[in-house]
């Protein structure tokens, strides 16, 4: 196996393999921000390709992009806005779950806030679908609750 040319940690790259078999490179200092990855490196060594069974080639590059920016200390509100701009709600959900799996705290916090922002004015039905949650209220219970909470229903978008 070829040794990395540079021996300093900061420019060393780690190979990550997604659940669907693709390999991506990431700098060791960025990998440190993902505790799951770092734990695997600690266990398996940093010359081996680290397998990430629950992360796939669709989302890993995006995550790497985020942390690449992070290690240069440049994550701004504008960057974050741009980062999620073209993602739909389900794509953000996938990234959010991946960030959780990778134990990538900064990204996780950012994405959970983004999901909250997106759900803010959504309907109850949309939220149920999004979280895969069943409505277990009886029709009477639900209408009573809605009546009590009528003030909170103002400004809600209809289901998209």
């Amino acid at each position, binding site marked *: 196996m070829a040794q990395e040319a540079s021996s300093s940690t900061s420019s060393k790259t780690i190979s990550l393999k997604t*659940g*669907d078999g693709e390999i991506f490179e990431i700098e060791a200092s960025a990998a440190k921000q993902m505790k799951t990855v770092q734990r695997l490196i600690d266990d398996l060594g940093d010359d081996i390709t680290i397998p990430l069974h629950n992360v*796939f080639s669709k989302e890993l590059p995006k995550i790497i992009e985020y942390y690449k920016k992070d290690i240069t200390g440049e994550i701004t509100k504008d960057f974050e806005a741009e980062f999620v701009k073209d993602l739909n709600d389900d794509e953000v959900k996938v990234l959010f779950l991946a960030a959780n799996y990778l134990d990538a705290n900064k990204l996780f916090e950012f994405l959970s806030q983004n999901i909250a922002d997106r759900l803010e004015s959504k309907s109850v039905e949309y939220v149920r679908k999004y979280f895969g949650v069943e*409505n277990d209220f009886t029709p009477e219970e639900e209408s009573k609750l809605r009546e009590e*909470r009528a003030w*909170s229903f103002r400004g809600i978008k209809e289901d998209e």
Partner: protein
Amino acid sequence: MEISPTTSNAKVSNHIPDDLVNSILYKLPIKSLKHFECVCKSWSHLIIDSYFMTVYRNYLLSKDHSFYDDTSILLHSTKKVKYDLYSLSGERFENKVKLDWPKVPLHPSVRGVKIKHSIHDISKDNVPPSRVGDFSFEILRPISINGTLCLEYPEIPDINDHTKLILWNPTTKEFKVIYLHKSNHLSDVWAHHYQFGYDHVKNDYKMI
């Protein structure tokens, strides 16, 4: 050669597990949070759980963004017969919102029951609500704790000589009426001796 698993994103669950749901809920504004109590029973129980609310409140207070830029002025209008409360917000306080008074049953205390310095939950009493806006009131300092106001009503007649205070959160519409026993020998100065506060240790509001 390694066989790639045929699992695609679709098979790996895109279901957000319960423990992660909280991290999203904590970041919602209070209006949405209350709204989503209707999602399902477990959410409804979770959102009113006091531990959840404590963490939620801590999140809210530790946010360093515009929540605090959004301070409002409370405008107390004393028209002759009715009293109105308005919240003014925005950069130049141009957004004026009239706060809807809570439908609070404010009634003379039940005869014979002297409630001394205790909180009487009268939501179960079948008393028609008085029009709170008909009475003059004072807002006790500090004006607002976590969005809750404490209003004092010195003028509401009370056969047991109780002072009425209402703890009221205009955002969530929740309220609690407190009847305090006026101590006779302090009758001249009692009005100024109440303080309203929040106890971090006991995680509750305190009246002194």
